[in-house]
Structure formats: structure tokens, C-alpha cells
């Protein structure tokens, strides 16, 4: 994973993790995009040989520790979403930017629903529509994140 400037992948993932836990005003906080999921999806579509489900699982696990949720919840959800993206990487690559954004938003919805289902199953949390707000913001963020990450990949010649 670290060969051919692969360290940049780690750096982007670390940045995504930091954005995930950065304190924000309460009104904006519900709209925080799934940074880690977006970055993970990009790398698994662009370089499926370097980034795999196990990486996704480890990152989900770190999110679990950072957020203090039950260990394994975010890890499992992240692994499932990235699995779907990685299996269809050739199809997703050929879509236009906005089609990709739609697919990412669907993955993000799945991610949040899986975490909600697990938490509901474990500690009985009631459903609130605000849990799905990040789907919208992820949809809007994806094109910009995609272009930026592609620039990073080309500039550092990550293969």
C-alpha cells in the first residue's frame, strides 16, 4: 500500500478522520459529510489493488474509537459500503461525475442505515430524519472531493 507514494493515501485518510471529529456548530453538525466514506470510496474505485475492504474496516474501527460508539458498528458498515463500491469499480469509473455522486449518496444512506439498525438493535435508539442529512451533503461534496483527490493522485503519481 505504501509503495509509489502510497503514503499520500494514508495522509488523505488521516485528514478525513480529522474532519470527521472536528468540532462544529450544532446547526451545521448534522450536515457533516461522511468524509472517510467519500475518501475510501474514491481510493477503492481508483486503486482497488491498493485499498481494500480490510483498510475500510480498520478505518471504521478507528471511527468507532474516536466517536466512542460500540466497537465494530462503524467498522462493519464501512466495510459493507466499500465492498459494494469495490466490486463495481469498473462500472462506477465510467459514470459521469453527478451519477457517481448519486451512487455515493446511496452508499452513504446505506452506511447510516446500517449504523442506525445496529444501534437500534443494541441500545434501542429511536429514528430521527436528521440521521440522513449527511446523505445530501455527501452528494454535494463528492464532485469536489473527487476532482481534488484525482489531482492528488495524478500529481503524486500514485499507482
Amino acid at each position, binding site marked *: 500500500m505504501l509503495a509509489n507514494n502510497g503514503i499520500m493515501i494514508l495522509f488523505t485518510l*488521516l485528514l478525513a*478522520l*480529522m*474532519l*470527521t*471529529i*472536528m*468540532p*462544529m456548530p*450544532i446547526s451545521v*453538525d*448534522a450536515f*457533516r459529510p461522511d468524509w472517510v466514506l467519500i475518501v475510501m470510496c474514491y481510493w477503492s474505485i481508483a486503486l482497488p489493488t491498493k485499498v481494500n*475492504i*480490510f483498510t475500510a*474496516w480498520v478505518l*471504521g*474501527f*478507528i471511527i468507532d*474509537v*474516536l*466517536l*466512542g*460508539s*460500540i*466497537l*465494530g*458498528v462503524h*467498522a*462493519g458498515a464501512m*466495510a*459493507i459500503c466499500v465492498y459494494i463500491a469495490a466490486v463495481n469499480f469498473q462500472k462506477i469509473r465510467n459514470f459521469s461525475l453527478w451519477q457517481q455522486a448519486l451512487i455515493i449518496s446511496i452508499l452513504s444512506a446505506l452506511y447510516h442505515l446500517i*449504523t*442506525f439498525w*445496529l*444501534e437500534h438493535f*443494541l*441500545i*434501542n*435508539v*429511536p429514528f*430521527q430524519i*436528521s*440521521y440522513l442529512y449527511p446523505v445530501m451533503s455527501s452528494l454535494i461534496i463528492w464532485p469536489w472531493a473527487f476532482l481534488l483527490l484525482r489531482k492528488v493522485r495524478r500529481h503524486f503519481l500514485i499507482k
Partner: protein
Amino acid sequence: MLVLFCSALFIFFDHKMASFDTARGYLQSLVSPLQYMANTPKQLLTWASENITTRKHLIEENQQYKINELKLTQKLLELDIVKAENNRLRSLLASPLRVTTKKMVAEILSVNNDPYSHQIVINRGANDGVYEGQPVLDEKGIVGQVLHLGTTTSRVLLITDLTNAIPVRIKRNGIRLIATGSGNIDRLTHNFVPHSTDIRQGDLLVTSGLGGKFPEGYPVARVTLVDQDESRPFAHVVSKPVAEIDRLRYLLLLWPEKKTTIFASKPKTKKHTVKKVTLKNKGNH
């Protein structure tokens, strides 16, 4: 498949058996640099806003503080007299005296953004003597308790979290209740309150000290809704936390005095020891 199995295993062991508490502590300290780093932009902003204030504003603030200090010292004097009186009365009743507790100020590191649980991270950890289950409050009332420990950071479970419940009593008449978190930041619910309970809107709920985790008498919540609908088995009571949970910045950690019971009063134990000594002396003879 293996990955899913792994997470299922982790979920089971973490949730049902709580067997990761020590490992969690290590993981928590491992990721704490990340938390400090994520917190720096906010700290920079607050630093900037604190430094770029006008002189006039500062003078006004200073005056306000002076007035406040005057008021507080006056109250403190009153409190000293009342405290002495209380201790005298307590010694008359042969119940244990209240010892002043150790306190420490902590700052919030990053507000957790997991919508399913209400937790915050503070900048004190095991190195500062924090322990699990420790009560945490702000200047208004109880905020929560320490959930996981790291070496330099720790995680606080707020009273509004779904999995948290805290024993309280009504300040007005001493009726005991349990305040359970609802998952909403401004609501606590109370289960199993009989219809005949004397509880009214606006009642202040304070910690009852039962359960041994929280010290007695700190404000927790104010009752906002009492619905005594006879068709339901219990009254529907909702309250709002006194502490402004969504606006926390500085917190207070408390080290409660050692547990004392009403029955273990000081004179009695002295007598016991005296008796024992005399018995031993007899034995020696």
C-alpha cells in the same frame, strides 16, 4: 465475510461482555493526538476572538466580573456561617460531617458528533487521577459521568444519553425519581412515576446521592411537563437538564468524599475501639 464476522464479534464482546474496557483505554490514548489536532482550528479561532476584543469591551467585562465577585464573596460569607452551623447540628445528631471535596477544572476537547450517543471528550485523563464513573458538572448542574479513560483524555457520557440514568429527588419534597436520558439534548424522561406523586411543572430535581456515584444535592433538571393521564399505568413526566448541555466549555470534575453511612457515626466507633483495646488488655493479663 471475514471482516463482517470480525465486526460482529467485536460488537458482541464490546456490548454484551464489556471485555474491551482496558483495551479501549489504550486505543483512546492512541487516538488522542488526532483529537488534539482536530481541535486546534477551533482553539485558534477562540484564541483569535479573545485577543481581538476592544478595550472598552474588556473594561465592561472587568466591571461585570467585579460586581459578580462582590456578590459571590458576600454569599460565601453567608455560606461559611451556614456551614459551621450545619456541622454543629450534624455533630449534635451524631451524623458524619461533610468533608470538602477535591475539584479539578477540565476543558472540552471535541464534541462528539455521533448522533446516536451523547458523549464529549475532555482534556483530563488517568494521569490527572480521573477515574471511571466520576461525576462531571458545570457551573449550573450535573453534566454526566466519566465513561472511558485514556492517559491524557477521557470520554464523558452525558445525562441525556439513552443509556444513562441518574437517581434524583425533588428538591421541594424529597420524592425520589430516576432521570433517564432520552437521546434528545434538552429532555430527560422519568419512568414509573405513580399518578399520586406530588410533582409539578417547574420542580427542581437534584441528585439524591443514592447509588453512590453522584454526590448529593447538585441540581440536575427542571420538570417541564407532567401529564397525569389516568388511562396510562404511570404518569408521563419530562424534564429539561439545568446544565446547558449544548453549550459546554469548561467542566468541573469532582472527587466525592469516602462513602459514609448514617449509622457509622464517629462516637460509636470510638467506643468500639476502646472496648476492643480493653478486651485485648484483659486477654494479655
